């Protein structure tokens, strides 16, 4: 019997029903309205939109240059330019249309108190979920300094957990020795979900001037160049997160439906799109269509059936690849 399938793209994420597994990533889509400038782009094509990293006080960010193309990717060192939590909550959130998609905050700080204070303010706002960015490589204090230590990560999560009942997502850095241990500690500390991965640290040099191209010297590498790294990290974190039913937003270099499917198969419930929007502002529609076509072709009714369906022999993963 062949019943034509019309698979659903909707996913359940920490009790939220996202219309699509696609999540537009923090720092790539401003504060939620920027890409609507583009005709044919709609916030409705994404299950959720993560707003730019927000700190307690406004930040001007890093000096130029802040972005630079590298082979199959790009470096960025924006330096968390943002107008501060109060402005975001009082002036920007009221202008967003929450019927179009879900909006997540992305919280960053230099101290644990900063994280707690910004989380507390967002808790009292209409935001749908709060992502703790303990993995920003582009600021001098805080950010990735918390994220690279499982102890510090857990302390940030624990402290923020106390001040919010909204879904709490912890965004993990790939720039650390054992992402599994960090993920485990964040889950124990009360994280409802994990975002894997933030950018990979890198740099570029202008050989004519012998100066670093990026004003901040180092930047975060994103785009297709980091996809294999991200995919492995998602698979590793999924092993830790699955027993706790903790969903993952897989991200890093996703440009097409096949990329998104790989992340879902590796264990991600939702998949992030950042740099690909810079290449092709309409990519969400294409990725959604591709996922739906794959589900239909494989006679699956929902994305849920595919999550973590990786068919890999157990215990075959060698730490050394040489």
């Amino acid at each position, binding site marked *: 019997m062949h019943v034509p399938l019309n698979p659903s793209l909707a996913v359940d994420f920490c009790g939220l029903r996202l219309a699509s597994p696609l999540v537009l990533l923090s720092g790539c889509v*401003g504060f939620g309205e*920027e890409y609507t400038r*583009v005709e044919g782009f709609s916030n409705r094509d994404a299950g959720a939109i993560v707003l730019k990293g927000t700190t307690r006080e406004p930040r001007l960010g890093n000096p130029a240059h*802040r972005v630079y193309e590298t082979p199959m990717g790009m470096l960025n060192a*924006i330096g968390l330019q943002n107008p501060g939590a109060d402005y975001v909550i009082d002036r920007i959130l009221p202008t967003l249309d929450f019927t179009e998609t879900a909006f997540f905050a992305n919280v960053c700080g230099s101290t644990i108190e900063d994280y707690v204070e910004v989380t507390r303010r967002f808790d009292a706002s209409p935001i749908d979920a709060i992502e703790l960015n303990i993995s920003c490589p582009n600021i001098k204090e805080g950010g990735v300094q918390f994220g690279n230590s499982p102890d510090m990560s857990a302390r940030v999560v624990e402290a923020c957990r106390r001040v919010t009942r909204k879904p709490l997502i912890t965004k993990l850095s790939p720039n650390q020795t054992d992402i599994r241990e960090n993920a485990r500690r964040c889950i124990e500390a009360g994280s409802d979900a994990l975002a894997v991965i933030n950018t990979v640290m890198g740099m570029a040099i202008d050989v004519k001037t012998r100066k670093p191209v990026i004003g901040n010297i180092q930047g975060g590498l994103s785009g297709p160049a980091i996809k294999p790294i991200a995919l492995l990290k998602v698979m590793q974190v999924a092993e830790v997160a699955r027993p706790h039913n903790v969903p993952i937003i897989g991200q890093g270099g996703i440009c097409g439906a096949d990329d998104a499917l790989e992340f879902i198969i590796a264990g991600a419930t939702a998949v992030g799109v950042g740099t690909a929007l810079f290449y092709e*502002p309409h990519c969400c529609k294409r990725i959604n269509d591709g996922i739906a076509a794959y589900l239909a072709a494989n006679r699956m009714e929902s994305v849920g059936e595919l999550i973590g369906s990786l068919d890999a022999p157990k215990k075959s993963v060698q730490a050394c690849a040489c």
Partner: protein
Amino acid sequence: MNNPGPAACSIDEKGRGRGAPPERRVHRDTIFVEDGRLLSQQQYPGEQFVIRIQAPQCAAAAVPGSFAHLTCNPERPMRRPLSLMRVDAKAGWIEILYKIVGPGLAALSQQPLGATISVLGPIGNGFSAHPERPRTLLIGGGVGIPPMVFLAESLKTRRAGTPWQPLVLMGSEIEFPFRARPSQILVPGVPNEAIACMPLLDDWGIASRLASFGGFPGCFHGYVTDLAAHWLASLDSQALGEVEMFACGPTPMLQATARVARRFGVPCQVSLEEFMACAVGGCAGCAVPVVQADGSLAMKRVCVDGPVFDANAVFPPQVS
């Protein structure tokens, strides 16, 4: 950042809005993504190229000063921002002048006629010329020439209402991306040696003069900003009160332009360049410091808050 709306249209029981009212959403659907078709590609000395691309939506909505973000090569998928030099809304094409800097534009120069080039545009706030200052002084340096051509052409077509008197000054250290010839139009106040012009502008009846250290015939020997200062110095105070300056080019040239404008007390708008990723306001990759009306410093995005800014706001006296 977003323009904050005073209040949302409606708020649900969880305090979640349904977005700003329509009048605060005028930004929506203003930039188009099109599969442009390469109609022509003309090479000039110094690895300069003029290309024409069929991109009707971009052409129809463009204003002088706006730019397009082009995919030059699928192997290097980041787009490159390039100013619009001319557009024909009826015929649906845009024209761009570029000089190869690195692999992105090198790849663009290799595209065959008929090739598909993704065009994201038009982007950015353009120049605004004020009728009470009809003596418009346009200064273009190197690949900063294109927006000046666009502005000049638009002043020509707008001429009916205001008696615009544009003077376009162009500077280049390599050969100009057109065949310069002696101008048919007299411009009092510029040194006698400066007689070469851009033929296209001359044919439109718009005065232009060229400056270079390259020793090209008919060109003013020196910086284009020195040529501008010559002309401004020839005006009496009433005439100076009718001048408005517009500039696009390398940063040192823009800084010098800002100084000249201040020296003569003339308002000036400059078009900036910065490395870009999204070009629609999403990444803050292109932000530059801009002095606000109250003297405070804010980071503004060159792509959607600019690329045109008030010269004093981006090159304040103490910095430039």
